[in-house]
């Protein structure tokens, strides 16, 4: 398959240079093909997404950024299987996404923890559904809690945790069922700046340790440049891919580096135009 050909056919907006996308062809985990989403009500129709086209390689960390109203959350929900596309398709390892599934681990901005379950019970939820029996289940939960640095909080209820800790539980819960892809929708939007910086470092460590593919939605350009291998920049009205920027800076990335600032400027420029 040729991404470039599809991209050209898919959207006029997607005329920007997408050479960086082609190197994902061999092991594309996620493939978004001429995706469109239209919301129709009695009075009018709104085109939320039009001709969205990109691929994410196995083990890659991709961020999606864009102005509000560019449909990034809609895109996220379609990839998650929580909403259906109007046109086009999302495929995961070659099979089309038709609904939610444990091959995609989801992390939400508002954490989405089950308040009546303790930390370890939250992490165990997906394992229970998969029929993982004890003691394997508890072992997996312990392993995940160690991964996110929450061992010792297994029996705490979510109400007892800070925002950063809640999101660590969210990540542990999503990873427990061993998904192909980690899908994150502005996961650190509700935590303070200091905690967010810390969580960025932890997420990159977890990513390196688990070899997961990560698709991360954010409106924060600096966050995207800090984390991503590639940044999918979206534009609004209708929501479409404006450009895909490959971030070629070694990790860990310092925000004070000139190169970092250049990337941020460039992406901001793309969003602002």
């Amino acid at each position, binding site marked *: 398959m040729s991404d470039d050909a599809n991209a050209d056919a898919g959207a006029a907006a997607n005329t920007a240079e997408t050479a960086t996308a082609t190197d994902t062809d061999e092991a594309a985990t996620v493939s978004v093909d001429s995706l469109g989403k239209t919301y129709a009500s009695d009075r009018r129709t709104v085109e939320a997404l039009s001709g969205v086209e990109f691929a994410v390689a196995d083990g890659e960390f991709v961020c999606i950024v864009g102005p509000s109203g560019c449909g990034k959350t809609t895109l996220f929900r379609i990839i998650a299987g929580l909403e259906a596309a109007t046109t086009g398709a999302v495929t995961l390892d070659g099979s089309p996404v038709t609904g*939610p599934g444990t091959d995609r681990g989801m992390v939400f901005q508002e954490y989405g923890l*089950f*308040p009546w379950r303790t930390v370890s019970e939250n992490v165990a939820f997906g394992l229970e*559904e998969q029929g993982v029996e004890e003691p394997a289940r508890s072992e997996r939960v312990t392993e995940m809690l160690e991964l996110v640095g929450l061992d010792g909080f297994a029996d705490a209820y979510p109400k007892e945790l*800070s925002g950063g*800790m809640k999101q*660590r539980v969210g990540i542990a*819960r999503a990873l427990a069922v061993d998904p192909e892809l980690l899908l994150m929708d502005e996961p650190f939007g509700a935590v303070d700046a200091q905690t967010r910086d*810390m969580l960025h470092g932890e997420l990159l460590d977890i990513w390196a340790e688990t070899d997961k593919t990560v698709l991360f939605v954010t409106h924060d350009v600096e966050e995207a440049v800090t984390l991503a291998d590639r940044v999918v920049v979206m534009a609004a009205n209708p929501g479409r891919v404006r450009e895909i920027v490959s971030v070629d800076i070694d990790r860990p990335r310092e925000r004070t580096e000139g190169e970092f600032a250049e990337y941020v400027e460039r992406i901001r420029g793309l969003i602002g135009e």
Partner: protein
Amino acid sequence: MSNDEVGAGVTLSETEADERLLDRLAGFSSEQTGLAVAGFAGFLAVWYVAALFQPTYLLPSPVEVLAAFVVELTAPASLSIPFTGVELPATRLLVKLVQSLYHYVPGLLIGTSLGVFAGVAMGWNTRVDSVFTPVTRLLRPIPPLAWIGFAVIWLGVNHQGATFIVAIGSFWINFYSAYGGVEGVSEDLKEVAATLGVGDDWTMIRKVVIPAASPSIMTGIRTSIGQCWMIVVAAELIVGVGVGYEILNTAQNLAMDVSVAYMLVISIVFLVSDGLFRRVERRVLEWRA
């Protein structure tokens, strides 16, 4: 990860819990308790003084009521166990209370289970909701006691009749609290569960919807525990057994002191059952912020 941050979450909540406990102890031991005692003593004093100038059949004094209470509590009577023919030695008050419990407990259990079941079903499934909403709107405004005629014709002047009335009362309370609770369950939590592998309605209801709606369901159960004591008294006036009937029966014989003593019984059983359920509720909803 920073230890400071980790520490913050837990220390805070522990401190909060401690403070809440201290508040409660402090509040109860000093000013609030004092005021509560004073208020209650004032009530008894006004009652006592007012009763001095009235005959007992118009207004019994607190002392007379207490005396009547003790008499009823100790006067021997025999308690017959339904369906068995067994007679047990007991006291008058105990016999009346057990008679009331015969229809209070089954009525509450039946009404609560059916109410929660119907509320969850309608709150969960929009089609079930659409089908039954008109009927519920039509039946809801009818007071439970209005069904007394049917209770008597269908079930007779006995325990079953009163049970039926109590069940209707607790059904509506629990129906609306369960319905509201289920409707209020956040879409986010259901979506999270779906992405974690929950594929069928029954699992979703069992593992997400009911726990998420449990605070509302528990409030409904607690409300019905209280309301049903009031309904039971009213139902018993007609079916002629239990504490409720005794309140009316003694009053018709102008034994107002005994009548008020039985009113006191209702207050006591209400306070005890409400207190016990509050403890259960606190344990079950321990996770709540």
